């Protein structure tokens, strides 16, 4: 079932489209935003809410590459592999990711932190090579820059972990 929040967000989008059918891509994006990816259950939930056949929605979901039908890590790295970035050093960056994170294209690190995906031209060709991590663009990349950027995400992860560990001790005594 869609959560209340998901339902409300989909409802809010409906003002932009004259048919319920046209909402389906928005709805998939919303479910992904909340759940990280779109599982079979996610497909079934949206199909039911929009009164579409699940198989048809599946056809739509698999067409668009920013709808993830497989689980992804907490951060998704989209490495541009189009021609300008290829000329300016894409291969070197891909290999650097492999060396640093131990993953190739389409793979997720064992700790679930990063998924690495190739992506078509990000419109930063005059600052190639380029990539996005989640919603943030990075450009003029080289291996050293990659290390700096990855370190920043690692630091954030550690901070989050600490917060979680500290959480209950900070006053959540509801647990028996």
């Amino acid at each position, binding site marked *: 079932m869609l959560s209340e929040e998901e339902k409300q967000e989909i409802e809010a989008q409906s003002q*932009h*489209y*004259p*048919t319920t*059918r*046209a*909402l*389906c*891509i928005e709805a*998939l*994006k919303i479910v992904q935003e909340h759940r990280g990816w779109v599982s079979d259950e996610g497909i079934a939930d949206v199909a039911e809410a929009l009164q579409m056949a699940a198989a048809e929605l599946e*056809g*739509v979901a698999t*067409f*668009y*590459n*920013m*709808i993830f039908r497989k689980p992804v890590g907490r951060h998704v790295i*989209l490495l541009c*592999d*189009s*021609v*300008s970035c*290829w*000329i*300016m050093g894409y291969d070197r960056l891909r290999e650097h990711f492999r060396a640093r994170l131990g993953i190739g294209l389409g793979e997720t690190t064992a700790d679930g932190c990063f998924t690495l995906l190739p*992506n*078509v*031209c*990000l*419109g*930063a*060709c*005059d*600052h*190639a090579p380029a990539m*996005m991590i989640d*919603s943030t*663009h990075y450009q003029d990349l080289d291996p050293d820059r990659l290390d700096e950027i990855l370190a920043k995400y690692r630091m954030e992860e550690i901070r989050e972990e600490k917060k979680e560990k500290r959480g209950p001790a900070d006053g959540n005594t509801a647990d028996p």
Partner: protein
Amino acid sequence: METPLTRSIAPEKAPPDLAQYEKAGGYAALRKALRMAPGDVTAAVKEANLRGRGGAGFPTAQKWSFVPMGDDAPHPKYFICNADEMEPGTFKDRLLLEGDPHQLIEGMIVSAYAVQADVGYIFLRWAYKLAAQRLEQAIAEAYHRGYLGRNIAGSSYSLELHLHVSAGRYMCGEETALLNALEGKRANPRAKPPYPQVSGLWGKPTVVNNVETLCCVPHIVNKGAAWFKNLSRSGDGGTKLYGVSGRVKKPGLWELPMGTPIREILEEHAGGMRNGYRFRGLLPGGASTDFMIADHLDVAMDFDSMQAAGSRLGTGTMIILDDRTCPVGMLHNLEHFFAQESCGWCTPCWSGLSWVEQILKGLEDGKGEASDLERLQSHARLLSPGHTFCALAPGAAEPLQSGLKYFRDDFDRHIREKRCPWRS
């Protein structure tokens, strides 16, 4: 030299808000257009010789003229801005979207008025997050100020405008595939005819124009067709955003007179090749244009001159091939892109392109054979116009056929030496 499209754009700064945009003369074109008959707006655009900046160079006013007008015309009519920019090597619409969103919105309203459209959509690619934010803000401001919604600026004309953020795929930029994407379907292209102007989004009359095309329109209305034509160094009116990427000293994007020669852009604006690199060729307007070589450097970058030289203006953003980059490897990268993005509808495209990709990979891996070149040639013929449903396949054929022609020696070396000479 005038640069109407980019004059208010300061890349590192926030874009002009509505008040600033108005102060610089913004929305005057809209007020003026609303006092003109819709047909007169189209006539001005025709007189200005504005050709579509989405890649094909179709005359904009002619495109609009197919929309049914008058009391019997079906409604709602739709007006769509194609902001899907995903052509490899292309980064021009991004600047206009992020840098001056009100210019695009004004362009859309004026253009929609010309065909009496009721509803507009900006179809934006998902990766342009900053553009999405800025457009949303600008659309809200325009509604608030009465430039969108009912009775625009006190006139009897009304227009609703929505932003749609795509979920990805190069195909979505093809105008009929885009319509399917907006309707919540798989983005396969539609058969033409019927043309979208007659039966488009939800079966209603629909116009699709590129971002840069629409940004020209307010300036034409404001300053007139003669002024617009005078901006150009060729028969096609206006300025053009030209870009250069690859191993040049200063990669970038510049608004210059339409018809500026390649050499001038490459040498004066992009600063020439980086030290230690020599020029070998270029794709003049994105991945789906024919290679050009040193012989072509004096060609003017306008639609007709580029066509006459055996290539296309395309998006006007060129990608430079240097002497330390393998042309076969570059082609492999390009054809991998096209094979991946094929929507799977036509056999010469989905099947042919995966063969092309494999043959090129074989050449790169040292497994090339003399017969490969003939096979690549025959695929290039099958991908050319007339064999497939949309222009993706002919686009893929362009770098392939020209690459085989201009870099034949490099192909031969791969086969003879059984390796890629650029890889150590």
